[in-house]
């Protein structure tokens, strides 16, 4: 079980995340939703051990991950929000580097990297420097890097960002298949319909605090809305999105 206990992160005197607790059982996909600046990325960074919580802890298999981060990270696959890759490396070189640092065997690394590159339509570009890659191609490289060592825990921060429709469909199906194989999946996203489709449970966060933690159906039912989008808006938005859009148009069309 992957578990967060009262996770809190304070920058200076500003709390970014406060008392966030959840658990993910094998085969479950936990969706993590919130507006910009709500503390999603900070939570993700604590979950993968990039940041140490100010209070609270992340536990995996009953142990605080900070006690043996290297062992935890052997079982972790992480897709970061921004694909900041090394532009001078080719896609294949990047995967070779990740596989080597993961201590994968030479044969396994070469076979898996080649196969996954082909499956995600990057086979023809594997020896091209990533400075020439589109955002979607870089995102697919990050996905392959996260998946190729067959991790037990997957932390995905906006994994569909920049992907074309076909690749996005592949990834959505992939998440469902991986959850059926008993993986622990933490899925952080802005795309509500994807969260609705792939996640078994959902957390809505705002200003660092959890507003809801339940299944998607339960969240909808609790808020009394028929769609997740309406429920999300009701939970986190103070402003009327329709009214803001209307005001923007009014500013645009105002005389010069």
């Amino acid at each position, binding site marked *: 079980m992957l578990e967060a206990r009262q996770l809190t992160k304070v920058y200076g005197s500003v709390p970014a995340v406060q008392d966030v607790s959840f658990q993910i059982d094998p085969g479950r996909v936990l969706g993590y939703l919130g507006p910009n600046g709500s503390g999603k990325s900070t939570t993700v960074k604590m979950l993968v051990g990039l940041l140490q919580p100010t209070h609270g802890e992340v536990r995996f298999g009953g142990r605080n991950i900070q006690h043996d981060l290297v062992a935890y990270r052997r079982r*972790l696959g*992480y897709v970061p929000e921004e694909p900041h890759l090394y532009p001078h*490396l080719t896609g294949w070189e990047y995967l*070779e580097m*990740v596989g080597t640092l*993961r201590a994968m065997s030479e044969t396994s690394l*070469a076979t898996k990297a080649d196969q996954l590159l082909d499956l995600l339509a990057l086979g023809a570009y594997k020896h091209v420097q990533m*400075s020439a890659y589109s955002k979607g191609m870089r995102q697919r490289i990050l996905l392959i890097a996260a998946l190729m060592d067959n991790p037990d825990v997957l932390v995905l921060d906006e994994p569909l960002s920049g992907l074309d429709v076909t690749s996005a469909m592949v990834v959505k199906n992939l998440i469902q298949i991986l959850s059926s194989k008993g993986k622990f999946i933490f899925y952080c996203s802005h795309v509500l319909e994807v969260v609705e489709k792939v996640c078994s449970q959902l957390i809505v966060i705002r200003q660092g605090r959890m507003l809801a933690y339940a299944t998607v159906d339960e969240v909808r039912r609790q808020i009394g809305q028929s769609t997740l989008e309406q429920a999300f808006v009701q939970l986190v938005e103070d402003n009327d999105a329709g009214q803001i859009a209307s005001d923007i148009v009014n500013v645009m069309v105002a005389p010069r």
Partner: protein
Amino acid sequence: MNDHLSSGPAATALSQNPFRRLLTLFVSRMFHGGSELGTDDLDLGIGITVILLALPGLFVSLLLFEKYGSLIRFLRGDGAFDPFEATIPDEYFFIVLSMAITGIATLWKWTAIFPDRRDFTNLVHLPISLRDIFIANLAAIAAIASLYAIVVNAASIVLFPIVVVGSQGSLPVFMRFFLGHALTVIAAGVLAFCLVFALTGILLALFPYGISRRISTVARFFVIVFLLALVASSLSVPGFLFDGMVRTQRVLGALPSVWFLGLSQKLWGRGADPFFSHMAFRAVAALVATPVIAIFAYLAGFR
């Protein structure tokens, strides 16, 4: 697309030592710009960078054939000369050249010396310890410092002794000149690298990342101005050193390049002059202290 193809089968070879792979990564990223994807840092690659670093020393060494070539000296009617005394101005110029080029090259790669946000995103979630990342980056920095210092001075290390003492027919003299010159200019280059490295680390240790980056622009400007001033004054400083004025010597003794001139005199067996002995001591002390300060500053900045 073909412009971006990597360099063939070697690029796809698997390297199964994680530490070596990290080291390779850090060395290569220092040559390929430290910027994030999508920015316009000048990316010359290793080959072009090495050639650019080596060229000034090569040109200056070739120009010295006219001054020290035995045939030209014969045709001019010049008699025998003491190579260790006659070459002091040129030795000083090579020291300054080594410090200036190494320093400017290090400033150019300033943003790539330390691990940045990209390394944080790509490496820290992998099953490797922070200690390994730290040591690999430090080893890469040491490798780059050595490479810069050797490449910048490679031509003068080989050509300068040949030009000056090659025709004197004495192997001991040649070896003394060669080793003294080589050790001095390489040490000067290493010190220039370490000074810039220490400055980077101190800025990162003292200020938050964003502020230190802004301050670094100003700091880099002043370091470049200082290095260019060293080059601009390099032809006149040796003359001032020997004008017999103690006050002038004391003022010029503050320049790191003068310390290394003292070191070269010592290594050439001409360390009887107390001023140059003192300068040599300063050079050695700086060579010991600066890397230690740089490593502590780096450690503080890394944390």
